[in-house]
Structure formats: structure tokens, C-alpha cells
């Protein structure tokens, strides 16, 4: 077992444990903090996959914005500091069975397809620059890139409209 594999297993254990805590802990703020741990673990996976740019984007977007926004909303949508009682519905057993089945199915799918054991090539030095170029090239991803910006603008307008407090209403 190489050093990389040890790092991988450690990261996987931490990430999955954190993810489990996210969906089981009764304290919502703790769930958000565990979510941050899980997202950080995912960023480490990206680093292992030599996608350093996306690892940084993961930390900035998910941890710096999404997770913190969630903590914000958790704090805003409560009147007491701690949640009382269980936070999972009575249907959790069915959910667990379904999720386990899904996991089994996915593992079976992954196992039954022949996949390369090692990368077919090294990541080129210029991979970040290539991504940047591809995102604005007319024969690359310029349309998705622009549509994503339209989507973000629309989401922004919608979110502001919905969450805005009007004093006289």
C-alpha cells in the first residue's frame, strides 16, 4: 500500500463518517459543521486527483459560501439554540433500506464495468489554462458558461425577491 493509498483511505473514512454525521446528528449546527468536514474531505479527493483548481473552488464555493450560508439560515430559522427531539422522520428505516439498496446497485454497476486501473495519461501542466480556454471557446463550452451566468443572475434576482422583507406587508 503506497502513501497515496493511505491518504486516500484516511480521507475516505473521515469524509464518509462526517457525511453520516451530517444526516444523523440531531443538532443542526453540528450537521452544518460536519458538512464542512465532509466537503473538505471531498476537496482532498480533488487534490489527490490532481484537480487543484477545483479543490480550491470547492473550498471557496462550498465551504466559504454554501456551508456558511446554510449555517446562517439554520441560525435564522429558529428561536431556540438547540433542536429538541429527533430530527429524522419516522420513515428513516425505509430511507436506510432504499439507500443501502442504491449503494449496492451502484457498487455492482461500478464493479461490472471494466475500468482502467491507472490513468491513461498524466495531467498536462497547462490543464487549468486549458480549462479556462475551453470555457470561453465557441467550439468548447462557451454556451454552458454563459448560460450558467444567466442562471446565477436569475437565481440571484429570485433569491433576493423571495427573501426580502417588506416593512409594510
Amino acid at each position, binding site marked *: 500500500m503506497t502513501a497515496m493509498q493511505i491518504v486516500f483511505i484516511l480521507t475516505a473514512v473521515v469524509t464518509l463518517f462526517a457525511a453520516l454525521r451530517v444526516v444523523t446528528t440531531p443538532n443542526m449546527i453540528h450537521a452544518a459543521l460536519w458538512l464542512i468536514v465532509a466537503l473538505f474531505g471531498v476537496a482532498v479527493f480533488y487534490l489527490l486527483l490532481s484537480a487543484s483548481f477545483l479543490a480550491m473552488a470547492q473550498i471557496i464555493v462550498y465551504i466559504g459560501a454554501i456551508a456558511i450560508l446554510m449555517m446562517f439560515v439554520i441560525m435564522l430559522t429558529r428561536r431556540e439554540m438547540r433542536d429538541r427531539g429527533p430530527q429524522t422522520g419516522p420513515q428513516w428505516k425505509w430511507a436506510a433500506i432504499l439507500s443501502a439498496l442504491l449503494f449496492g446497485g451502484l457498487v455492482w454497476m461500478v464493479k461490472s464495468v471494466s475500468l482502467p486501473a491507472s490513468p491513461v495519461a498524466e495531467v498536462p501542466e497547462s490543464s487549468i489554462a486549458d480549462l479556462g480556454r475551453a470555457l470561453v471557446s*465557441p467550439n468548447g463550452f462557451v*454556451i454552458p458558461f454563459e448560460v450558467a451566468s444567466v442562471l446565477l443572475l436569475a437565481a440571484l434576482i429570485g433569491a433576493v425577491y*423571495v427573501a426580502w422583507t417588506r416593512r409594510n*406587508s
Partner: protein
Amino acid sequence: MNGIDSAMMLAILPELLLLLVAGAVLFVDLMERGKHPRLLGWITVGGLAVTFVASLLYARPPEGGALVWGGMLRHDWLAFVFQMMFIIGAAATALFAMDVENLGERGEFYILLLASTLGMSLMAAAADLIMLYLAIETTSIPMYVLAGFLHADRKSNEAGFKYLLFGAMASAIMLYGFSLLYGFTNETQLAALPTAIEQSGMGLGVLMGIVVLILAGFAFKTSVVPFHFWAPDVYQGAPTPVTGFLSTASKAAGFAVLVRVFMSAFPSSAMPYWGAMLAAISVATMVLGNTLAIAQNDIKRMLAYSSIAHAGYILIGLVTLSEFGITGVVFYLGVYLLSNLTAFAVVAMVEKADGTTALSDYAGLGKRAPWLALALMVALLSLSGTPPFGGFVGKAWLFGAAVKSDLVWLAIVGVLNSVIAMYYYIVVLKVAYFDPPKTEGKIAVSTSYTVGLVVLALAVLLVGVAFAPWYGWAQQAASVLF
């Protein structure tokens, strides 16, 4: 790096114009906020009309279609016909929303409506998994806000809330399917996928697993079983014009991708398997939608279940796996769009006048507002599949396609369901025409409603009587896939 040529720009002409209209609304809203309550609505309607005409004139796709923008989009008749439908749907929605309180005077409403239409338009044209996912989300995310747009109304809040939660889950499952499809085949182009799937040596079981994951997202957008359960709540709670849009254009967009992905992205060897799966889903959807619709006493909820049932009928066309069937799908979606929009327009008008959507409050509508009642009758009869309205022709084609493809049992199930459906549509008409009115007073119909209703109701009739040209379009759209 290559430049951009005019063919590429013309291929996205409708999208560009939609964006332009949204920009205009944003600008006018900032400058003239609150001064002319209906100005924004008319700008949107006018802009959409211009978009419609300009697209018809200049953005007609080349014969056989073309792959543009680095393979992200397909410029073909299938996309084009659907895009025209979405523009009509959006324009009608804007017309009917104009007079609704807290909705029609809001610039944000029109911007989100246009953003969502833009997403649908891209959904119909998407030729790449990345583009497809993004287009679906661009349609859905503004729609979540639209469903919850009336923040003073608890039901609307609830609708947005539920729509978002179900939508986020369904699209995440679908995306997982996309990621596996990309990974196992190393290909994101829809057209190149069948070959790539065969080369990857992926077993049928794995492929069907991916199909199930992807179907979750599509089933959500088209509200078919088992991802239908959000529909009644959301349709009932959302502002009525939005419900109309949601149940027609959004559903048509879902079918556009469903048809394109299933017919062109999976190898033909897998067709019988997913065909059987979709047939089962189709039957379940029809039966469930129709039986539950009978029990409703709120007209929006009833129309929601009826809309689920219609998704079932439309699936029949896809299950036939034939060009004839797909033609039926496209044609029926067009008819359904017109009819359902008419129905929801009447519902919106009555809701505005009486503040209710309960079925019993439609009593005496025939006396209080004869023209509205007439429009409602046209819409419901068309939905139930009565000649001479468009719905009859559409249903005839769908069931005919099933018979032609040796799926007689499916056609029979469809016909039986139509008979059940006939019952609850007739009940509404009976209440409207024969029950004594609860309240006195005429219902005043505003200009925008008159324009919209007249156009739509005439169109429903026209499609039912002179169906050849529309059928030609649908056929041209379907031929792209074969």
C-alpha cells in the same frame, strides 16, 4: 480557436432574443418602477411575439439539423418546434399574469419567466450531457421561485418549498446517472453515446441502472409516476398563471429531452427494455392521475391530476418507438399546451374575481360570464378528447400509433382512461352551466385575458379542424430522430 459564424448565431436566435427581452424588462423595471403596472407585462408579451416571428423567419433549422457551438446544441426541427411552443406558453403566461396582484406588476416575475423559458429552449436543443443538465436546472431554478412567488400567501410558499426540495433531489439523482454515463463511455455528446456505450462493453444491466437514475430527473420534470407526488401540491399552491406554465411548457420541455435522450442517446438494442419500463410507467401514470382527479374538489388540484394523466397518454407515443408515435407526442404536446393554458387562464380569471379555486364556486359561471365559460368548455372538451377540438386529433394519433406498433392493449388502456377522464371534465361543465350561481354579478374580463383567451381557444379549435400543417411540423420534428 475558431470564430463564430452566422449559422451559429442564428441557431441561438430565440435564446438571444429572450435574453434581450429579459434585459429590457430589467431595465424598464429599474427606471419606471411602479408607474405603469401593466407595462412590463406588455413588454414581455411584445418581446415574445417579436421573438416568435423573428425565429420563424430567420432561425428555421437546416434540413436534417446541424450540430453547433462545439456540439453543445442541435439546431433541428425537434428543437425548433418545441421552442416555438415554449414561446407561446410564456407569452400566454405573461398575458394572464399581468392582472394578478403581486405578480403582474413585478419585473422579477417576467425576468424569471423568461430565464425559465430560455432554459426550456436550451433543453429542447441540448445535444450534450453538460448542456442538458445545465438547461434543465436553468428551467427549474427560476421555476422554484415562480412557484413560491407570492410570499404573502402560505400556499404559494409551500408550493415553492416542496417544488425545490423534490426538484433538487430528482435532479441530483439524474446528474449521478449523467456522471456514470460520461464516465463509463468517456463521451458527453448525445449523438455519439450509442456507439460509445456499445464500445465500452457496458452490460445491459448497468445501462438500465443508468437509465433508471436518469429517468428520475425526467420523470420529475414531466410529473409521471413515481415522481408525480409534488405536482398536485405545487400546482395548487403556485400562482395560477405559473401553474399554467408549469403544467404545459415545463412539461413539454421535459418530454422534449425525454424523447431526444431516449431515442438518440441509448443504443437501439436497449430500446425494448426501456420501452417496457416506460409502458408500465405510462399505465400507472394514467390510472393514478385519472382516478385521483375524480376525487378532487379544487379545480387547480383536479387539473394537476389531469395533467399527470396526460403525461401518461403522451408516454404512449414514446413507447411505440416509432416515428408515427413521436409525431403524436409532439402534436399532442402542442394541443395540450394550448388547451391547458386556456383552462388555467379561466381559473386565474375566476380566482381573481371571486378569490376561490373551489370547484363548487364555478356554479353558474355560464350565466355570470358566458364567454369565460365557453372558453372553459373548449379547453376541457379538448383535454377530454372530444371532437372537433385539438385534443381529439392528438389522442387519435397517439392511440393509433400504439395500435400500429402492436400495442393494442396500451391503446385500450388509454381509451378507457380517456372515458374516465371525460367524467370529471363533464362534472366541471355541468357545475358551470347547470348549477345555480352562488353569487350574483358578472365577471369582468380584462383586455389581456380577452386577447389571450380568444387566441388560445381559436387555436385549440383550429388545430382540431385543420390539423394538417401542424401535423406536418410535428412530423418534421419527429423525423429528426429516425
